[in-house]
């Protein structure tokens, strides 16, 4: 079954790992990456509200198309897009199933389409914005908006730990596999095999959390020994950190342009 093999390759831990890391770090060439993080965050806040101003499906589809273009430009992870599509589809499907018993499922789903579209627009714009910002720009943006450094550092550190966690988790799942019994007969579409892997992958979370907790002590000591708490109250340090950011015409252009697109959609559709 070559199709199934392809699917398995695409969903292998290695591929997903590489895909997510690429999303987190390799965004330098993307269009949104060139913009000032403050502008992007402001843009994001605006686009959290914009969908709720419209009811017309056509306008909403237009908005979705617009943010999707941005998402493509910022090279969003296929894995994340797939995950989102799955969630949207399964939510709608589950409503349909429930409403079979209470009345007309088709009408129910149709009624839910605008609402789902709005949520999808917000999700896609989140993907576009946050995939195009690396950990550094994201925390710079938040820091300049007055978010405390303790929190913005946590973001950078979280990103830094991501690959380590992947590795650790993968290794633990493998440890489980080497000491467990796989189901004797895999069943239709190997469902028993996948159910078994799913069970192991859930159990592997606990040891991972313990291991990571144990390690963080050294990390905190090391940060202290390199002046982390000094930086919290140090004006010069904050200034250095934010020095690279500047508003340029392209930032303003993008922001105004986006609003024009929204206005255009509202006017002509």
């Amino acid at each position, binding site marked *: 079954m070559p199709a199934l093999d392809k699917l398995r390759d695409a969903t292998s831990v*290695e591929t997903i790992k*590489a895909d997510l890391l690429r999303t987190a770090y390799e965004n330098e060439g993307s269009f949104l990456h060139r913009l000032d993080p403050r502008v992007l965050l402001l843009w994001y806040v605006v686009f959290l509200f914009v969908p709720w101003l419209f009811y017309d499906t056509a306008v909403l589809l237009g908005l979705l198309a617009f943010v999707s273009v941005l998402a493509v430009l910022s090279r969003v992870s296929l894995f994340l897009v797939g995950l989102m599509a799955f969630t949207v589809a399964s939510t709608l499907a589950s409503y349909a199933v429930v409403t079979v018993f209470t009345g007309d499922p088709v009408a129910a789903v149709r009624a839910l389409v605008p609402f789902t579209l709005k949520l999808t627009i917000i999700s896609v714009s989140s993907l576009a914005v946050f995939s195009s910002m690396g950990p550094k720009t994201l925390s710079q943006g938040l820091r300049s908006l007055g978010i405390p450094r303790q929190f913005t550092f946590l973001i950078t550190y979280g990103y830094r730990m991501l690959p380590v966690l992947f590795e650790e988790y993968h290794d633990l799942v493998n440890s489980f596999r080497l000491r*467990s019994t796989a189901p004797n007969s895999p069943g239709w579409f190997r469902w028993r095999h996948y159910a078994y892997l799913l069970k192991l992958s859930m159990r592997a979370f606990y040891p991972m959390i313990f291991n990571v907790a*144990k*390690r963080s002590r050294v990390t905190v000591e090391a940060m*202290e020994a*390199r*002046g982390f708490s*000094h930086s919290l109250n140090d004006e010069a340090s904050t200034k*250095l950190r934010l020095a690279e950011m500047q508003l340029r015409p392209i930032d303003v252009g993008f922001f105004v342009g986006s609003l024009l697109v929204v206005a255009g959609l509202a006017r002509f559709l």
Partner: protein
Amino acid sequence: MTATHNSRIDVEKLQFRYPGTDEAVLDGADLAIEPGEFVAVIGGNGSGKTTLCKAFNGIIPHFYEGDMQGQVTVAGHDVSESSVSELSQHVGYVFQEFDNQLVSPTVFEEVAFAPMNYGHEDYRERVHRTLDLLDLDGLEDRFVWELSGGQKHLIALAAALSLDPDILVVDEPAAQLDPVNARETYDRLATLNEDHGKTVVTIEHQTEFIAEYCDSVVLVEDGVVSWKLPVETALNQLEDLRAQDVHPPQVTRIAERVLGDDGPLPVTLADGLAQFIDRSVDGGVRTDGAPETNPTGEPVISFDNVSHSYDTLRSGTKDVLDNLSVDLYPDERVVLVGSNGAGKSTLIQLVTGLETPDEGTVTVDGTDTTGVLPEQLAEEVVYVKQNPEEMFIDDSVRADVAHYLADRSYPNVEQRVDDVIEFLDLEDLQTRDGRLLSVGQQRRASLAIGLATNPSIVLLDEPTGSLDLASREEVGRTINRAGERVETVVIATHDLELAASWATRMVVLDGGEVIADGPPGDVFADLGVLEQANLRPPQVVRLGTELGLDPAPLTVEAFVNRFGTTGSSATETTKPIVGEQ
């Protein structure tokens, strides 16, 4: 070694007790370190040496709010009155678990972390200057998790150096790195000490490095500093060292046995050569190493033209194994050696079936690994990982040992588990959580987990890595005993002393290919091959080779026996070849 600063360290009657414990870790320690010294701090596990060093930058008492008495003065600052961040400008600290000290994604950001925290506007220059100083330029944009262990350690060192501190404390560099990388770190430390006048303090177990690089040695014992002596004198205090589980260098141990107690014993290879060169030696027959076995029957593990690669984010695709073929036979004790990234771990993973080759076939006990699940191969093969923590998946050692048996519903699980636990002396530890044991105990527990599956093939990844010498010997004994229970043991290691004393066959990997394969005695005879693979033979082998012993003895014991079997007649002496060393 002339100091460019006047930052002294003075410790007076330092007492410290960690919160929640009754016993003091440090109990009246006195120590003075002059500007520009290169000092090694030694001591057994739990002697208080790390606590002592953490008082230099104020982590003790500011981070651990235990009970502290006495006084520590560093670069004119009273430690209990100054903050960690103030002291950190004078003292750089590289932690033993250096991997966890890297907090930023890229090398540049990591090294810039401290200068930016202190608001130094010239942080870019500082980063480049520091990276230049350690010959690391070019790595700026690399992700820290994609670096090798040795590179990561140097980046941690660079990060500690970025504030240009006068004093540098490095905790156990040789324990976490392979010998070649540890040597590289020491070379950089020596440059920093000699050319830039930095005071360097290392916590170290491996006396071979101490002898070669340090000026003086501090022995910490039960919370007090027993002595601080110049390195030659210090390494001649054999009883004091052994009482603290510190092994004197091999050359010193040989001299102790051969030359006896008169006069100071040599501590470096060069000194040793000078003293042994006049002694007569047996050109002799090999009396050391494990007996050779002739491979018989079908191979148990067979690699046939295997290639394997993986992708990285910024460095493209890396080929780990390149068209490699090798057969391993029953009852062999194989060591795979090679530098970091030579493909040792990958080779082992291929045998477990967790990885499958991109090209070629791997056959284990007659089964092609691509066709079966790792769970099935695990019936015959057990893989004991380099990091034992990854093997603890339950909340007690006993549950971990039983996991495999219970999951496969074996009969009398309890009996079998008791058996393994007794075999490896784990009775007292069996109810504890594996993660909270000491590294040596963890290693023993991970071997128990492996042996409980009753395998015929055991794969061990770096079983002696990051262990102090006492735990190393313990693990060595365990491996020997484990060998009696199973058919084939394969060990991937940097530890050539282990290879010399244990293996019947040594496979040297370099650049994804086998560059040498044979009994350890033969492989050690060709130093060129070892050099190519970035390996360094044990000191005893180097001493033997320099003295012209052919074949060179592999262990201290064998070396001493050679001396023992000859009379004083000089005619038997083969002409010594003395290199530059």
